[in-house]
């Protein structure tokens, strides 16, 4: 039997505010445990929440970016459950009237086609603290750090519109691109700034009813997400084909061991007993505020891609890659502004630089080769100072921190010889030193002569210590050999 996969995503996005959603405590990452948990975050008796305006504005900006309905009046609810990293005993969140309503996000698939993924809604809520169970702790004890408690999040809930792990990852990456482009999230996945819960079910191809779904929670990388979906789809299909049934449950995927296990089934699922939070009044977003935020909204990824095609005469392929990541876009524009050579910059970024960054698990934000350094290299390639082969050597040296392109070219004596007088002399010497090769060239059919040039080129490059400009040498060599015919 053929099976169809159905996937829906819930995405938690940490908002890039300076302070918590309901308190004036800092949200900066990596502080001493519990040094950024104030009385409100700790749920001390007598404290009351005061909502952060910036968090509301960021949520509205996300809604505008995905062309969603903005609820002018939204309310906060309490979601009740007990866990040590949730000091209040409830999470303040939105259920009945979330701030962002229906919208959609267009993803581009590998075959070049577009697909719209519907967004059910996005709501504001607070993050919980963090529990540690390992490390220097007494036996039978877990430690709780509440620095993250109260960090503002938006939870984006998609419709079950994705049909493969590839589509789910494309959607997740597009969301990452949108939230970082409009500056509402720093996008640092390793710090938990974006976390994904995936709902997966399978059904016979052609069926219109949904199968029973499972939810795999808290995936914090695109790679883990793809693996977790693929494994879960396989597990469900095997289970059904062996005569079993999928049970609705929450699962956890361990990216290091590649093993997923059941966390809790529906029967044990919490009954959260939601009710409107009596400590918070309805949040009103006026038309004026919405319009103000709409006008100030930074460029969106799709618009940026169109602009790259027109402003820099890039191919759709190049523009799509460069605009698919906001850090990469910023890097590209900053580098191109200095080198004035968009095509060569794009080639180096998409090729060499991306490959190196990927192999060392780095991003354009923390690239060892800066936009400025790449520009200086591109300038030297474009003005024929160095060949492509030399450029790779220079690139390596810049990556290793050995200096700027010009410094390295100088230090390594890599400057390409383009002075025609000097080149003519080398070519003449090589021709004179190799009468047999010259003979062979003259006696060859015209069509085969081109192939014979390789032998001369090799010797000329050797004589010039690899510094001769190959295009120029080629021209001089042909001219000189043709004179002998």
């Amino acid at each position, binding site marked *: 039997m053929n099976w169809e996969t159905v996937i829906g995503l819930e995405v938690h996005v940490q908002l890039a505010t*300076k302070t918590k959603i309901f308190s*004036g405590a800092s949200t900066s990452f990596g502080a001493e445990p519990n040094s950024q948990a104030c009385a409100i975050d700790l749920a001390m008796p007598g404290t009351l929440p005061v909502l952060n305006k910036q968090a509301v504005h960021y949520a509205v900006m996300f809604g505008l970016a995905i062309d969603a309905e903005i609820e002018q009046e939204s309310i906060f609810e309490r979601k009740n459950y007990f866990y040590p990293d949730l000091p209040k005993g409830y999470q303040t969140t939105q259920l009945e009237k979330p701030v962002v309503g229906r919208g959609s996000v267009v993803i581009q698939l590998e075959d070049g086609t577009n697909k719209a993924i519907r967004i059910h809604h996005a709501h504001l809520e607070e993050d919980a603290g963090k529990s540690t169970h390992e490390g220097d702790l007494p036996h039978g*004890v*877990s*430690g709780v750090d509440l620095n993250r408690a109260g960090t503002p999040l938006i939870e984006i809930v998609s419709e079950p519109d994705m049909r493969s792990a590839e589509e789910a990852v494309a959607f997740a990456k597009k969301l990452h691109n949108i939230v970082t482009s409009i500056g509402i999230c720093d996008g640092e996945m390793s710090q938990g700034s974006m976390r994904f819960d995936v709902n997966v079910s399978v059904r016979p191809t052609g069926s219109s009813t949904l199968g029973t779904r499972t939810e795999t929670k808290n995936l914090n990388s695109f790679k883990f997400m793809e693996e977790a979906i693929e494994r879960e789809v396989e597990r469900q299909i095997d289970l059904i084909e062996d005569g079993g049934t999928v049970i609705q449950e929450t699962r956890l995927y361990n990216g290091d061991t590649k093993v997923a296990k059941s966390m809790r089934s529906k029967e044990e699922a919490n009954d959260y007993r939601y009710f*409107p939070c009596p400590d918070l*009044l309805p949040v009103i977003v006026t038309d004026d505020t919405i319009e103000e935020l709409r006008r100030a909204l930074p460029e969106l990824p799709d618009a940026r891609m169109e602009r790259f095609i027109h402003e820099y005469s890039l191919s759709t392929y190049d523009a799509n890659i460069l605009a698919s990541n906001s850090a990469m876009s910023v890097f590209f524009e900053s580098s191109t502004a200095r080198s004035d050579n968009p095509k060569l910059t794009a080639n180096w970024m998409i090729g060499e630089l991306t490959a190196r960054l990927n192999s060392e698990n780095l991003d354009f934000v923390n690239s060892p080769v800066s936009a400025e350094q790449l520009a200086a290299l591109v300038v030297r390639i474009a003005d024929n100072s160095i060949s492509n082969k030399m450029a790779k050597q220079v690139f390596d040296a810049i990556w290793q921190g050995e200096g700027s392109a010009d410094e390295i070219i100088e230090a390594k004596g890599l400057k390409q010889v383009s002075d025609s007088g000097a080149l003519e002399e080398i070519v003449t010497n090589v021709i004179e030193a190799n009468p047999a090769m010259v003979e062979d060239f003259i006696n060859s059919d015209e069509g085969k002569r081109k192939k014979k040039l390789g032998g001369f080129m090799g010797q000329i490059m050797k004589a010039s210590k690899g510094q001769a400009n190959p295009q120029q040498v080629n021209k001089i060599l042909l001219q000189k050999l043709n004179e002998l015919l």
Partner: protein
Amino acid sequence: MTIKREEIENLATLSRLSIDEKTITDVTDRLSSVLDLVDQLQTANCESVVNTSRPFHSSQRLRSDEVTENNRREEFQSIAPEIHNGLFSVPKMIE
């Protein structure tokens, strides 16, 4: 409206409350009577009344995104039952 004994037991579990055998019948009866009152309220005609969860027309005041809180960890942790290396200690939550 009658509330079932099992529902009380489930609610107690979710709320981390222990209700002993002797009082569970009494709690069940009392909560049922509260729900009876809710049933009575449901019969009121409120067709012309807009849904509201609050008694007055006012909206949430918003705060500007500025850090106003200092690190008071020492003070807060001085009243914690147990701490370890700056972390609040709790009974281990996973196996």
